[in-house]
């Protein structure tokens, strides 16, 4: 084999490795983003959402989380792990409390730290209507995502409390 052919093969191998790394890294990021979008959809509610639909959504939302899943919200003194059934109950409570609200994630930054662990920094935006009229709200979240059996699941949610009233 000529030296030109060897060089070509080496370059091709390097390109394939780099391409593979980029493909798999971006596909992990895409899967995590897709799960965030699904979570936002399951948490969102319309005014006349049928009860069956609500129950289906909270079950699906809990399935996106690990067993157990850690939740930290200092403002309402939550700082512990929840089982899947507890997560289902929490999602149900959330939807009951915000019955006509759209959840969405913005400014999402994902860092896949290792092959099975990723950290997400994102802004959760709520837009809806309550008895006082329309409202919008936003929270900064740190989320840990773990890859289990090929699926990226949320293992930790922390609301970043960087403002002191």
């Amino acid at each position, binding site marked *: 084999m000529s030296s030109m052919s060897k060089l070509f093969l080496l370059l091709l191998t390097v390109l394939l490795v780099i391409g593979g790394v980029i493909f798999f890294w971006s596909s992990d990021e895409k899967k995590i983003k897709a799960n965030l979008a699904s979570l936002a959809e399951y948490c969102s509610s319309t005014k006349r959402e049928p009860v069956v639909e609500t129950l289906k959504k909270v079950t699906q939302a809990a399935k996106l989380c690990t067993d157990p899943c850690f939740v930290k919200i200092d403002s309402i003194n939550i700082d512990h792990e929840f089982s899947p059934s507890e997560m289902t109950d929490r999602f149900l409570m959330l939807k009951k409390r915000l019955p006509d609200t759209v959840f969405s994630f913005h400014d999402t930054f994902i860092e896949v730290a290792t092959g099975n662990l990723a950290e997400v920094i994102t802004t959760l935006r709520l837009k809806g209507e309550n008895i*006082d009229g329309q*409202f*919008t*709200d936003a*929270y900064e979240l740190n989320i840990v995502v773990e890859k289990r059996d090929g699926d990226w699941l949320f293992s930790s949610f922390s609301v970043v409390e960087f403002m002191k009233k």
Partner: protein
Amino acid sequence: MLLKRVVALAGETVEFREGGLYVNGILIEEPYVRHRSDWQLPPRRVSPGHVYVVGDNRGTDSDRHQFGEVNMNRIVGGVFP
């Protein structure tokens, strides 16, 4: 990323009385506020290196609305009017 209005600087005192914003004891006119609140918040002095930020949309309870003193290091930019 959150979008908030800076209402008080380091060293200033900020408080809410029946939804009215007072900075250094003076009521601030806020024509930009949507959905006025009835928030009550005792006076507090803004720490050095921090600013006090509040959103314009104040239709939610004060315990649910994210506002308060924030380190200036966390500010990434301003908004052009």
